[in-house]
């Protein structure tokens, strides 16, 4: 037992779980490779990891950093950026899921399948984003007004001196 831990790096349960997991995954890969276009499958499988970990993640991290810097330059307080970040994130989630319709990537197949022409998904998505950003702006206006009233109520001296 101690020797297994020494050589393998973990206990017997781990080893059993590893073997079972790879056995099932191996079976599934064999089944997929018997189907059409195994190479194309591998490209999409590996491509999904690369697209997320090495392309999407660095890009959105960079956008975050740029937004943070820009906020700091125009002297926004730390949490103020969330009035942009939250609606932007919600718009991004909707886009990540529904981008084939929003960008009309295959309108021909849409019509062939549904027997209708696609509605203006891009317009709907943009409208949703507009509502979220406007809503966020309204919440910001209310919150900042409340904060100002609170400051005035608790410390009138300070409120006057800032003017």
């Amino acid at each position, binding site marked *: 037992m101690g020797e297994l831990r020494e050589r393998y790096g973990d206990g017997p349960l781990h080893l059993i779980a*590893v073997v079972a*997991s790879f056995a099932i995954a191996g079976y599934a890969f064999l089944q997929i490779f018997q*189907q059409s276009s195994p190479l194309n*499958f591998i490209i999409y499988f590996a491509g999904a*990891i690369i697209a997320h*970990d090495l392309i999407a*993640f660095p890009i959105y991290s960079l956008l975050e950093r740029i937004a943070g810097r820009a906020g700091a330059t125009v002297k926004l307080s730390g949490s103020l950026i969330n009035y942009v970040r939250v609606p932007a994130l919600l718009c991004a989630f909707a886009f990540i*899921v529904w981008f084939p319709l929003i960008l009309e990537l295959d309108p021909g197949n849409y019509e062939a399948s549904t027997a*209708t022409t696609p509605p203006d998904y891009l317009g709907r998505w943009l409208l949703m984003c507009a509502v979220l950003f406007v809503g966020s702006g309204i919440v910001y206006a209310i919150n900042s007004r409340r904060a100002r009233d609170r400051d005035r109520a608790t410390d009138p001296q300070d409120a006057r001196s800032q003017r």
Partner: protein
Amino acid sequence: MKFPPEFGDPPPGPFRREFWRSPLRGPWLTSFLGAALLPLIVICALTGFLSHVAYYPDLGGNGIGEPGDLEFFLLPFDWPTSPSWLYAFTQGLHIASGVAAIPILLAKLWSAMPKLFEWPPVRSIAHALERASLALLVGGGLFVFFTGILNIQLFYPWNFSFVPAHYYGSFVFLAALGLHLVTKVPVALKAFRERGVIAPLRDDLANTEPEPPGEETTAPYSPQAPTISRRGLLATVGAGSLGLFLIGIGQVIGGPLRRIAFLAPRNNSGGPQGFQVNKSFTASGIEEAMTGSVWRLKLEGARSVELSRQDLLAMEQRTESLPIACVEGWSTTQTWSGVPLRDLAALAGVSGGAEATVKSLQVGGAFGEATLADGQVGDERSLLALRVNDADLALDHGFPARIIVPAAPGVHCTKWVRSITFTEVA
């Protein structure tokens, strides 16, 4: 030879712990996201396998594998015909839980991202195998979720066939998830013991502290000042998840509430005769003349029978309100009229239990042919429908005649029916 080799100091960049500065990352956040994601994955996986059962893959032409494959050992029961909305429910849940998982999945990947660059890259054989399995977990997860998402939007940029790739891809994902749970549930339980399951949600921004860094955790060594609380981040992710869930569910609901599905493919845009279609007549490749007066329904059984549409309309008609429920997660309930399938079986000289292989006029296509189980044929509500909502079927809905079976996947409700072969079941 020594394994693993000495790796020395990490190279500059993401391999150094100081590179990762978010004050929110740490075992608690990742564990909380995992605990939120797991039920959605379980629901999505179970409803996915139920859909597989609903297809009766062991009947002629319905399956995706060869007889003798593992898939046939995984069929625990026969898919029922009652309640009639069963498949609309399970498959609506499959799609809605799948899209709702996306924001949480992405947030969880974000929270665990330092692990991709951990140093040393390999600590032991166990660690190396675990990291290899993580490639299957992340790749499998992204692959299964996004092939599903593109499929429901009728966008197929790949060459492989969707159903087996999505089905067996989920085996890869779930196998890797099983190992991930074995290794990570103890870590999550430890994080919840130390910090409480929901206690960190009480902290507003001013009270948001980084989790203490450790050798094998994602908590930052040099955290920045927080700009959002953990509950702020989780509420945003949760709102995204809930919104996507509602959009998914909207495709299952009829009436004005269907507008909720404003970004989904089968929303309030409707279709011919006011309801949605899975495949248009144009896409079926059928010549219109073949659906006219020359059309005959061929029945095969103990004897062969040919019936015109007039003959069928002269038989005793039955009217049923039944949903058409698509594997793509949308459904719509309409009132169908036509001849019960078991009356047609009797006409072909097959009484008692019979399977029915239904062929369409459709040229090619994955579902130009489907086999219905004896329980489906025997249900009195299963119809060869000629009319819908007191009008003749539109061409897009399968004129001159289509199958409608309660709780069956939509693609098994064959349109533009050409022939039905009844086979007695011993």
